């Protein structure tokens, strides 16, 4: 649905040049919620803004819904944008208009006739749970309500894609959850493809099916979350389930076990202790629902050096678990 190929963007020139995106490839499938995560300054905002060409890439191609936007004329681009909704971190609502007026703006641009405009704006406001605030001014709303107006405006033209530029970053955790629920519902009920960027792992965890990790303008990892979690050495998996630093382990073996899907509910640790007669200590564990599946990581300490624990480790791997030696000791 969205496809970026070799997209690069540098701000400034000469010695002041700041590379924001370096040869980025990105594919978002129809109907999924795709999250791009990265620290501030990683180029996330630039990345999402190249999708509807608010930011013109220096090189590379942007294809959305089968149309190569990087080759479109101005008027073609405007029409394409009407099929790509976007919500912003700071909402970007017009103070000169009421809530309904803000939603209607998107329809005015498309040329929908006044009566129909109002009907559709009210319908969408109902959908986002703001039916009762239709006549309010944006200044009278809370952050979460403002973002709902932003979402309503983005949905007004019935786009097939929704871009979310840190939509929940200015909101408190409670409100963030309700906005994410709304995005999930829109995705399910309207079949919208959602591309969101965020610096919060929780956002990825709670709504995304696929994700990409952006570091210094490059995509380091990308794919369905279920696969990324199982991938050895995945930074995203480590960030999703942070176990903290590895404690000193005095000649013992510390392993991180990542499990997901069907293996999540098996009594792995007690089986391990029983089968191999080991005294297993649990140093840390984290279990969450990711992309609708239970997944998590457990950090265990086994007595003896890694070489002595080859058999139990092989056993765990045989059960389909991802086992990694923590602390960088001999592999």
């Amino acid at each position: 649905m969205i496809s970026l190929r070799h997209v690069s963007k540098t701000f400034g020139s000469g010695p002041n040049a700041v590379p924001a995106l370096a040869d980025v490839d990105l594919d978002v499938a129809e109907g999924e919620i795709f999250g791009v995560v990265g620290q501030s300054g990683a180029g996330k905002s630039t990345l999402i803004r190249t999708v509807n060409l608010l930011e013109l890439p220096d090189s590379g191609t942007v294809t959305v819904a089968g149309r190569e936007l990087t080759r479109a004329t101005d008027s073609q681009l405007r029409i394409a944008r009407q099929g790509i909704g976007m919500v912003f971190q700071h909402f970007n609502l017009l103070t000169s208009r009421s809530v309904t007026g803000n939603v209607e703006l998107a329809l005015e641009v498309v040329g929908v006739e006044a009566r129909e405009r109002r009907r559709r704006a009210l319908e969408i406001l109902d959908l986002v749970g703001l039916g009762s605030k239709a006549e309010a001014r944006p200044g009278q709303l809370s952050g979460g309500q403002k973002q709902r107006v932003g979402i309503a405006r983005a949905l007004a033209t019935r786009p097939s894609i929704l871009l979310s530029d840190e939509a929940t970053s200015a909101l408190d955790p409670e409100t963030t959850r309700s906005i994410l629920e709304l995005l999930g519902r829109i995705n399910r009920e309207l079949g919208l493809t959602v591309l969101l960027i965020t610096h919060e792992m929780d956002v990825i965890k709670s709504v995304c099916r696929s994700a990409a990790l952006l570091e210094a303008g490059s995509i380091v990892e990308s794919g369905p979350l279920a696969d990324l979690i199982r991938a050895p050495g995945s930074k995203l998996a480590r960030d999703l389930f942070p176990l903290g630093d590895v404690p000193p382990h005095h000649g013992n073996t510390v392993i991180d076990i990542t499990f997901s899907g069907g293996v999540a509910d098996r009594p792995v640790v007690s089986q391990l202790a029983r089968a191999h007669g080991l005294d297993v200590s649990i140093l840390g564990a984290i279990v969450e629902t990711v992309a609708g599946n239970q997944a998590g990581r457990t950090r265990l300490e086994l007595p003896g050096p890694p070489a002595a624990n080859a058999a139990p480790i092989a056993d765990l791997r045989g059960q389909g678990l991802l086992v990694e030696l923590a602390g960088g000791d001999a592999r």
Partner: protein
Amino acid sequence: MIDPNSPDFWSELIEVLLVGTGQTLYMVGVALIVTIIVGLPLGILLVGTERNGLFSSVFGSRALAATVNRVLELVVNFGRSVPFIILMIAVIPFTRLVVGTFIGSTAAIVPLSLVAIPFFARMVEISLREVDAGLTEAAHSIGASRWQIVRKVLVPEALPGMVLGLATTVTSIINFSAMVGIVAGGGLGDVAFRYSYQRYSNIHMIAVILIIFLIVQALAAIAAHFARRLSHART
């Protein structure tokens, strides 16, 4: 010399003041309308043709936009730096071309507009700069054209600031209108000059000052009221 004790003094005073006020309001009013019609788009262009502005490429050319921007900047700065009394005389050929004569209230509207347009354009520019760039971006994201962004986003959002800017502009037009006696434009300034300076009537002077003060005060109150109502409605 005017004698305040003559039986006709007060009725003459009132008549002179009425005519003067009428001329002032006429000149200022028409000049204001012209100023808005020309100054508003000029201010929009001043901001728009900047780098990264809404019209940063004109007919697909960035160089052309940059040139337009430089020329407009120059014209506005030039217009603002020429003293009014000189401008008024200097533009006489132009005034003749537009109005057919360079004498009288109607003719005075030309220099008054010319001096107010750059001033108001700057006011418009300042108000537009206050509009959050995120709003323009949001408008782009829903596929709005540049014209739609100007009409539906920039101008409505900058309106409270523009109304206040307009009030400052009117005040300065009134100020300058006092000088148009020099081209026989009439108005309250002319009344003060002819009756008070040339014929020593303090009463005329006081009356003129009071009337001008009241006009400015009323306009400021109206502008403040509208600006407040506009921004109140927004919070």
